[in-house]
């Protein structure tokens, strides 16, 4: 099975929410269609973080907010040596955090 990060498109006003919400933020409707999100986008902002929660066994990680091609934004990890605001990025679903045997998958963005 292909793992993916999904957006939720309101059946009434078509607004896509990410992450899932119970009621649409724009129109208040309560029914959504899961939709795939574009993997291409541009980097809005980022940070290299050195004080990590205990289950990260690395010195630092880079986090960013990416605006996808359809305008939906997401927070994700970056694997980019010298990130720049506005740069084009391409996302892939990978393991982003592992606590014991629990693997959390999320979006990781690379330079495009």
């Amino acid at each position: 099975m292909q793992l993916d990060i999904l957006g939720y498109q309101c059946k009434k006003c078509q607004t896509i929410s990410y992450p899932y919400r119970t009621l649409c933020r724009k129109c208040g409707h309560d029914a959504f269609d899961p939709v795939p999100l574009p993997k291409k986008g541009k980097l809005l902002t980022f940070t290299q973080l050195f004080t990590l929660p205990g289950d990260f066994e690395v010195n630092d990680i880079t986090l960013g907010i990416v605006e996808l091609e359809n305008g939906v934004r997401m927070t994700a990890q970056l694997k980019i040596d010298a990130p720049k605001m506005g740069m084009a990025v391409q996302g892939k679903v990978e393991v982003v955090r592992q606590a014991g045997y629990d693997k959390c998958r999320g979006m990781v963005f690379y330079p495009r």
Partner: protein
Amino acid sequence: MREVYVAGIGITSFTRLEYPLVEIAAYPAMMALKESGLRKIDHLYAANMGGGRINGQTGLASAVVDNLGLTPAGAETIENGPASGASALKEGFMAVASGMHDVVLVTGAERMRAVNNLEATDFVATLTHPYAEYIYGVTLPSLAGMFTRLHMDRYKVTPRHLAMVAVKNHGNAMFNPFAHLHQPITLEGILDSEDAATNNPVVADPLRFFDCCPVSDGAACLILSTAEVARKTGKPMVRLSGVGQATDTLCVHERDNPLELPAVRGAAAQSLKMAGKKPSDVDVAELHDAFTILEIVESEECGFFKKGEGHLALAKGETGLKGRLPINTSGGLKAKGHPVGATGVGQAHEIVLQLRGEAGERQVKGAKTGFTVNFGGFGNNVVSLCFTREK
């Protein structure tokens, strides 16, 4: 609505405290009860964020009301993240204003140093969205880092401006015996010298160590009451004249404009409006500077300075102790410390001292209107309070 006054105050040092959470919460309450001469209250609110998770203490308010021998008064624990303190004061305000209670004791307490810094940072990070933020390693410093980068790009805020907030607030804390950090710092030491990279390492680029508040234990208390009760204490009359609260999206990436903090703007406007004041009426303010950038941006969102000009006012000294609008005279979260559940009550404590004229060497002369912003999450739940000195 009835008018609500401050009948008594108390505070612990913000530092590492090796006492049970219940006793930490009770100590400033004891001080406030002694100061006010009150022996009975109608209700107690205990503000706390992490007792259940990091101290194994749930039901804090029930334990504190008993510890103080104040049963059978009603008691509730209030949790609103790092804005728990101001939220509890808001609840206390509503209880007295509505006529339901005459005397309400609000104590905010936190004992976060029971765990190490990384565990404390991780515990605070549970405020973020569980699968759209937290799993990636998002922490509050990382959200602040990304926010800072946007402001540096758009408004030309520089690392020097950020460091100026830290230098100012560490300086103010030198006059506050209850502050966590009694450590004067200089731009030379944390920015310009050869040792600056060692003294002030990167935490969440572009934020460095001295851009971030410490992890503190501590507690603070205000007793809120009717005018009649407060007058009997013989203390200067300070009124809690305005409260405001607003929320924003949990995920920072969902904000319409990631450069803005609309919940700060909304909460601040409400509290000033209720108090019948304008931003220019405020004589002294305690803003939630968990990260240096926040003091700058909040000072704009509250209407003290134009958007994008908070850092310029700071550089001109307008927010210093002798400036036009002194901000964070206590040392702020940056140097006074940030015991999360206690912070909002601690901010109010400082404002009451200032309006009573009891702030010692950090006293803002003739202060009559004081104001606080207590920031829960990364700006997704903000409570603002306005206090006025009455005759």
